[in-house]
C-alpha cells in the first residue's frame, strides 16, 4: 500500500473551506436549538411550574451564552444559504465575489445577531 499525502492535516484553512464547514456546523446547532425551542413551548403549555424552571435555565449565564451562539449560528447559516442560492443560479463565482460575499455573510450575521438581541432587550424594557 502506498502512503497517502496528508489532506486536512496539512491543507491551509481558507475562507472558502472554513465557511463551508461552518455552514454545516451552524445547521447542526440550529437544529438542536429548534428542539430546545419546542421544549420551551411544551414547558409553557404544561404549566407555570415547568415554564419557570425552563425560563430559569434559559436566563442563566450559560443559557444566555448558548442562546447567543444559537442566534449567531442561525444567522450565519441563513447568510451562507443566500450565497448558495446565488451559486445555484450560477452567479457570483468570480474569486473576488466569492471572497467579498463570504466576508459580507460573516459581517451580516454578526450585525443581525447584535440587532436581534438589541431588539429583544428593547422590547422587554
Amino acid at each position, binding site marked *: 500500500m502506498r502512503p497517502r499525502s496528508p489532506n*486536512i492535516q496539512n491543507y491551509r484553512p481558507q475562507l472558502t473551506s472554513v465557511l463551508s464547514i461552518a455552514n454545516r456546523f451552524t445547521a447542526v446547532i440550529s437544529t438542536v436549538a429548534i428542539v430546545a425551542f419546542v421544549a420551551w413551548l411544551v414547558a409553557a403549555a404544561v404549566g407555570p411550574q415547568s415554564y419557570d424552571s425552563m425560563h430559569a435555565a434559559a436566563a442563566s449565564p450559560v443559557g444566555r451564552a448558548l442562546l447567543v451562539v444559537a442566534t449567531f449560528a442561525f444567522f450565519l447559516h441563513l447568510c451562507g444559504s443566500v450565497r448558495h442560492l446565488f451559486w445555484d443560479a450560477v452567479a457570483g463565482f468570480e474569486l473576488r465575489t466569492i471572497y467579498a460575499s463570504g466576508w459580507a455573510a460573516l459581517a451580516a450575521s454578526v450585525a443581525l445577531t447584535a440587532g436581534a438581541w438589541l431588539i429583544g432587550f428593547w422590547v422587554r424594557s
Partner: protein
Amino acid sequence: MTIRSSSQVSRWKLPRRFPVPKRFGVSKDSRIEQGRHWPAPTGAKRIKTFQIYRYDPESGRNPRLDTYEVDLDDCGPMVLDALIWIKSKVDSTLTFRRSCREGVCGSCAMTIDGTNWLACTRFVSQTAGTASIYPLANFPVIKDLVPDQAHALAQYALIEPWLKTSEPPPQQERLQSVADRKRLDGYYECILCFCCTSGCPSHWWNGERFLGPAVLLQAWRWLTDSRDDAKGERLDALEDPFRLYRCHTILNCTRTCPKGLNPGKAIAEIKRMMLERTL
C-alpha cells in the same frame, strides 16, 4: 483578507491548519516521521529553509520530513529551481516530476505551504519563512513528491473526454460560430495538474466515487461544446448522488487553480443543465 485571483498568496500567516489531531484519519503507514537535516554549503549567505516530504518505497519505512537549507544566491527564483538545486547540489535522491518549467504541462503540481500550486510558477519569495512542500494533498505517493494519478486519470476517462457526434465525418473541420467557440474559454485551458481535485475536501472524503473538480470541469467542457451531440448521454452518466452531487460548492478548487480557471463555476453549470433538462 480578500482574494482577487488564485495566484494571490494570503498575507495571513494563521491559521496554518485545521484544528484536527495530527493523525486524524491517517493510516499507520502514512504517518510522517522526523527526517534528517541537510545544511547549506559553507559560505552560503542567503539561506532559505525547506521542509520536504520524503518517501522511499524501497526502504520499507514511513514517509519523513527532511529539512534542506538552500543557498538563494546560487539558485533560481522559483520553488522548482530550489528543488532542482537541492537535487543537483545536495541530495540527488530527491524525486519530483517536472517538464516545461512555465506552467503549461502541470507536472510539478504540489502542496506548497499548505495550498496547491505549480512549483515552477511559485516564487520562493512568496513562500513562508520555512517553506513546506508535500506531494499533492490526499494523493497516494509513489516516491517523494511524485503522486500516483492513476485514480484521477481513470475518473477522467469515465467522462469520455472526446468529441461524440452522430453526424458523418465532414470533409473539412467542424465549424463553430465565434460565440459557440467562446463558450469553451476558461475550460479548454485546463492542464490536468489536479491541484483543484487534490484541494477539494469533498474529494478527500468521497474520492472513490465523487469525480472531483478537475474531471467535472472537463465534463462541462464537452457538455458545452456546440459540436458535441451526446449531451443527454453525458448528463445521464453524471446524474448520481456521488459523481456530481458530492460537490458542496466549497470552492477550494477555484481558489487554488494555477491557471486561474473556475472549476466551481463549471460544476454549477452542469447542475443547472441537469435541472433544465427536467423542466
